[in-house]
């Protein structure tokens, strides 16, 4: 596998950092890859814009930040506006159709999925929306196996919430499946 650079962007409460961590952890612990995850915060801000970077590679990873992501996920319009320009040519741009209207042209595969809607429909509240997104993303890219994500969820998520998270993951996988 070549080095893959991923950026998750969105706003404070959406769990983009958690998603990034889970992805990277899955790569490291269950796929034997190297992965580095970083993030940037606003200026001590609460609930501001968030951006989480993940680099996954078979090689050691030195520079840990992502400048031109192969995979860019934007979960708010603001994130989309800020970051859609930095995508690596030929990369994948994934957005949620509830939050983001893709407007600009980018040299990348553009995927809009109704993840938020699907979660609201099937789970009833926007909980685990980030996991749904992760499901969709992994299915679209094949970066890591869905089982690896599952394994991480099992160690990370409090039992009470595990079922919901699993379902969200499934929803994401299916959405991407349908799309493909």
């Amino acid at each position, binding site marked *: 596998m070549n080095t893959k650079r991923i950026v998750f962007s969105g706003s404070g409460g959406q769990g983009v950092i958690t998603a990034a961590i889970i992805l990277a952890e899955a790569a490291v612990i269950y796929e034997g890859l190297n992965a580095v995850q970083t993030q940037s915060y606003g200026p*001590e*801000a*609460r*609930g501001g814009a968030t951006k989480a970077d993940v680099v996954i590679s078979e090689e050691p990873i030195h520079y840990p930040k992502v400048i031109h992501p192969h995979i860019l996920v934007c979960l708010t319009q603001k994130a989309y506006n800020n970051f859609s320009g930095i995508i690596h040519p030929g990369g994948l741009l994934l957005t949620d159709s509830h939050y983001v209207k893709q407007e600009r042209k980018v040299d990348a595969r553009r995927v809009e999925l109704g993840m938020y809607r699907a979660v609201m429909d099937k789970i009833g509240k926007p909980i685990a929306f980030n996991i749904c997104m992760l499901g969709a993303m992994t299915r679209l890219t094949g970066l890591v196996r869905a089982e690896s994500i599952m394994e991480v969820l099992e160690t990370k998520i409090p039992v009470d919430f595990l079922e919901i998270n699993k379902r969200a993951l499934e929803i994401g996988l299916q959405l991407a499946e349908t799309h493909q």
Partner: protein
Amino acid sequence: MAVKDYLRQRFFPQIWCPGCGHGIVMANMIRAIERLRLKKDEIVVVSGIGCSSRMPGYLDFHTLHTLHGRALAFATGAKMSHPKLTVIVPMGDGDALAIGGNHFIHAARRNMDLTAIIMNNSIYGMTGGQSSPMTPFGKKATTATSGTIDHAFDFVGLARGAGASFVARTTTYHAKEMIKIIAKAIKHKGFAVVEVMSQCPTYYGRKNKLGSAVDMMKRFKEGTALIGSKKKAKHPDLIERGIFVDEERPEYSTSYLELIERLGNSTTY
């Protein structure tokens, strides 16, 4: 003037989380100032560091955002050197009573004419929900995940014990009362402290399963009672609201001006 007219509107919407009580304190502090007809140019607002301490940046006064815990020391210098200024010090509970505890008790002892408004949300909001000296025994925080074994300060007892000449408590639910009390505190000649119980739904609320900002404010309504009220008499466990201390004592910067005069001198300030 409307509240808005006292704000640096270009920084709005402000940084605080949805439902954070600090915004309610800010708006009602402005209303108190409006009620007292103070001029903007006469007012200096000094804060430390914390969510609460971001307040000055939003206010169209002379504003000073200092170091964590040190606001009262900066304010003491400003007031002492220029006693005509009205100096107001919005503080967090951590800012005022953890790292800033010493400046707090000494400001109370000296009785310099400063108004400290302590937004007590029982937590360190800015740094993400660690326990503060106002976190009640047993409550949870990111540094006390099994419930804190620390005892909280009795705010009123501490302020009174340290010698504050005006001590009051209110909550974000009791907005009208807050305006009245803050106005009185500002008018008070001497060190005045007002504890405003304020909700941090993001950390304190979430960690302790207290529900939304609305739920937390309801708790302020139900869990408190006016000093000497029937409600308090019936439910002695309720937290008291109102003015606990309101005494006249020599004010520090005035005493100093008198000292200057006694020595046969005068000062331009």
